[in-house]
């Protein structure tokens, strides 16, 4: 944000009309030759000097901008930067997002399940300024996209780049949880939790979800589970990233609420069912509320004086004006 330390100096601008009059309009100003250039009520001499006139106009503008910059410099412009410094340590969070083909099911109008999940995660991330957030996605395989970091831009970018079925066809909930736990385990943060969003039953991977949940509980990591999707048949449409082929069809099936509830119970988290976009957003809001910690924030004000830059700009404009007049236009008088 901009402020002027001594805004009174801006009052010099009030003198501008007078100065402009004295420099440009006053009949008796110096630097001009008096000579007839027209007949009385007759022909007048109008030289065709477009280049010169343009340069001259540029010079006039540069001159007054230069003076204006110096006036601004006199008013001591300062860039004030207010920064919130979090005094309390934040939580470490890892989102575990299902990217199996069934996430393309279109029962979350107008988007599909995956896009809706992406949207609510984005909202969640924006609200957790002080927390380190990571991202794990899974299908047949599980992969860490971003380790927990406070650089939320990276997290959001990574979230943006996730494509359905990049990690194959299947749902390895256990593996995904294990990856997430692995990356939270060594974190010194007092609060650590995992948010698992899935719409399938565990049908791949070497680790049982319950096992992973128990490991999480042992190291004090809570797992919030969100079951995404409705029961019954839903239309599905997605593009296979490997072949570029579009898949369309009808899918019937859903997540395993018992398993998800069990995981939550083992680790001390909560299980949510999200059948619509609204309930999905509400689920993440609940997580947000449950995991809210007292934040102590200090606002740090940093001032960066900019008068030096203003003086530099002003003097260069004046120098430009001078050089163009003397060297390019060869002004005399």
């Amino acid at each position, binding site marked *: 944000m901009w402020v002027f330390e001594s805004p009174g100096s801006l009052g010099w601008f009030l003198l501008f009309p007078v100065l402009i009059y004295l420099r440009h309009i006053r*009949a008796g100003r110096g*630097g*001009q*030759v*008096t*000579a*007839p*250039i*027209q*007949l*009385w*009520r*007759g*022909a*007048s*001499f*109008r*030289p*065709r*000097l477009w280049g*010169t*006139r343009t340069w*001259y106009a540029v010079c006039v503008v540069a001159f007054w901008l230069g003076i204006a910059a110096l006036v601004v410099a006199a008013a001591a412009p300062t860039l004030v930067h207010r920064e919130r410094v979090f005094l309390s340590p934040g939580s470490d969070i890892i989102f575990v997002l299902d990217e199996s083909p069934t996430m393309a099911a279109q029962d979350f109008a107008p988007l599909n399940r995956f896009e809706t999940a992406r949207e609510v995660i984005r909202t969640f991330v924006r609200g957790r300024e002080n927390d380190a957030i990571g991202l794990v996605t899974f299908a047949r395989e599980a992969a860490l996209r971003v380790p927990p970091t406070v650089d939320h831009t990276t997290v959001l970018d990574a979230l943006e780049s996730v494509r359905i079925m990049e990690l194959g066809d299947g749902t390895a909930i256990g593996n995904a949880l294990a990856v997430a736990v692995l990356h939270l385990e060594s974190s010194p943060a007092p609060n650590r939790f995992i948010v698992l969003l899935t719409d399938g039953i565990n049908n791949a991977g070497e680790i049982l979800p319950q096992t992973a949940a128990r490991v999480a509980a042992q190291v004090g990591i809570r797992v919030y589970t969100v079951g995404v999707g409705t029961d019954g048949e839903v239309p599905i449409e997605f593009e296979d990233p490997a072949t570029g082929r579009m898949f369309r069809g009808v899918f019937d099936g859903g997540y395993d609420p018992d398993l998800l509830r069990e995981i939550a119970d083992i680790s001390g988290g909560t299980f949510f069912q999200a059948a619509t976009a609204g309930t999905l957003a509400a689920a993440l809001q609940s997580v947000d509320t449950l995991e809210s910690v007292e934040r102590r924030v200090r606002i740090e004000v940093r001032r960066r004086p900019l008068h030096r830059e203003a003086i530099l700009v002003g003097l260069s404009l004046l120098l430009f004006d001078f050089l163009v*007049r003397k060297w390019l*236009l*060869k*002004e*005399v*008088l």
Partner: protein
Amino acid sequence: MDRSRILASVKRIRLISTELVENLLAGNYRSVFKGPGIEFDEAREYVEGDDVRLIDWNVSSRMNEVYTKTFREERELSLFLVVDLSGSLDAGTVRSRRDVQNLLIALFTLAAVQNNDRVGAVFFTDRIEHWVPPLKGKKHALRLIQDAVSFTPRGVGSDLGLALRTAGEALKRRGMVVVLSDFKTSNYSRDLSFLAHRQDVIAVRISDPLDRDFPVGGMVRVRDPETGRRVLAKGNSPAFRRQYREFWEAQWRQWRRECLRRKVGMLEISTDDDPAARLIQYFRRRRKR
């Protein structure tokens, strides 16, 4: 201008001009300013050597002697000056056009006084600023010169047509009208033509080297003394100097065309000329015609 400076400059002009007037009058002025015509004076006996064409046959037959007519020139000559006081005459490179104009006014006026002619003047800008009726006498002439030097015009611009029209209406008898202007004006040709029918008009164009060529140099702002209009001039651009020359040459040709068509005498005196020398040269040339 304060009074002492006016008097000083009047004195200076008189000093310069008195001698010049002597030169001017050495036959030249008289023969140019012939007056409206000659009038019959008397008839006297023919003496051998008289022009036989002038023998008055009516008187000769009545008197049974050969009589010849004698004439004398019409003495009632008036010289009238039309003086342009517009701002454009204040400018000049060598000296101001105004100086040249004042000197010319003094020369004409004093010459007329020496010759016992009447002299009057009209001073104009965009209006008639001042009117000096044609009168005889040294005192009158000096007043005219002083007026010319000291007059501060209220108007701007130069309505030469108006001044010529006014002079034409006011001057009943044929005389000499000298226009002292830079002719940086327009729409005067009709009035010039009317005046030239009844008066012997000499158009004295007071010019300046700057009226022809823009000096070589850099960029400069040029301000018009009458309108205050400013233009950028670029003395180092041949294209600009060509445009400038074309503009003023066109005006100059226009002036010459007007004068030639109306059979008006033309005299161009630049600020870097010697006005008296130019004047004497002009009268000498005119006498030869």
